[in-house]
């Protein structure tokens, strides 16, 4: 991604409440990490959408290559035994 000589781009992750994962919400520009956190608070949590924020410089993120999607993710699709519905449980058994 081309970058002008302005502020670098940061990706923002917000935890909306205790017990949930941080979730990617978007990006913003900031000159440093302190400012990025502040800006994230003002931009992405104006309606109390979050209780915790992570910011990561966008250029530090390595993404998987979508053209390798098949080899990366398809093998797990055939491992149905990882999913609970794979197993038969007799009728009348609960709490399982």
């Amino acid at each position: 991604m081309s970058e002008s000589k302005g502020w670098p781009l940061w990706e923002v992750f917000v935890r909306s409440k205790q017990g949930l994962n941080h979730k990617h919400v978007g990006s913003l520009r900031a000159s440093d990490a302190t400012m990025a956190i502040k800006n994230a608070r003002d931009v992405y949590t104006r309606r109390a959408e979050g209780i915790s924020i992570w910011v990561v410089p966008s250029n530090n993120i390595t993404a998987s290559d979508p053209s390798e999607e098949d080899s990366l993710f398809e093998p797990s699709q055939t491992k149905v035994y990882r999913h609970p519905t794979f197993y038969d449980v007799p009728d009348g058994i609960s709490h399982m």
Partner: protein
Amino acid sequence: MTKQEALHIYLLRMGDDSLILGQRLSQLCGHGPILEEDIALTNVALDLIGQATLFLEYSGELAEQPKTNDELAYLRLEKEYVNAILVEQPNGHFGDTILRQFLFDAYRKPLLEKLLDSNDERLAGIAEKSLKETKYHLRHSSEWVIRLGDGTEESHERIQNSLESLLRYAHELFFENEVDKLLIAEGIVPSAESIFPIWEKTLNDVLKEATLTLPKNNWKFQGGREGRHSEHMGYLLAEMQYMQRTYPNMEW
């Protein structure tokens, strides 16, 4: 002067400081140096308008003839506003805006902290709510003073100039008269004496980190607390009061 009269005036000062500074900041909405900072400054403006609403509401209830916060905000004469002259100063460039904010926040935060212990429960409650916001404002403004001071040569020079022109208005924040004396004695408000050293320490710490120097000119302006304002105030009020003055006695 009764305790009630004194508290009415004191709350008016708190409310007017918030209102007038909030009004100034709201002029910048849509014109900030970068979108993120536009949003940040507007947040500060919103907090201040919210604080003004609470302080003026309480003040109005204590007035000899009770008034609503809107009546107080919109329908007084210039000489009846008792905000410090500092907060009515024009926005200037971003450095001026930030420095004005910093000088104010550095005073307002310790003041609100002390007001948490006020014998007046309602005042303590407003202080508690406002303090959360003001802590954030102070962090924001001091970080920017440091960035600009220790940024480029140009930014250093600009904010040093802001300091030269604005510091003279800051001392009025520690103004005291019989209103304060009465309320201090009642344990309702803290003394200026107890806040000034905290303000001064914040100022010195931040200026040091920002590589800025305290101006030699130590001239101290005051008058706002007694209703004598700068030339800027009339224009600010003309704009703010426009609707209420043009269309009297209507609801909006």
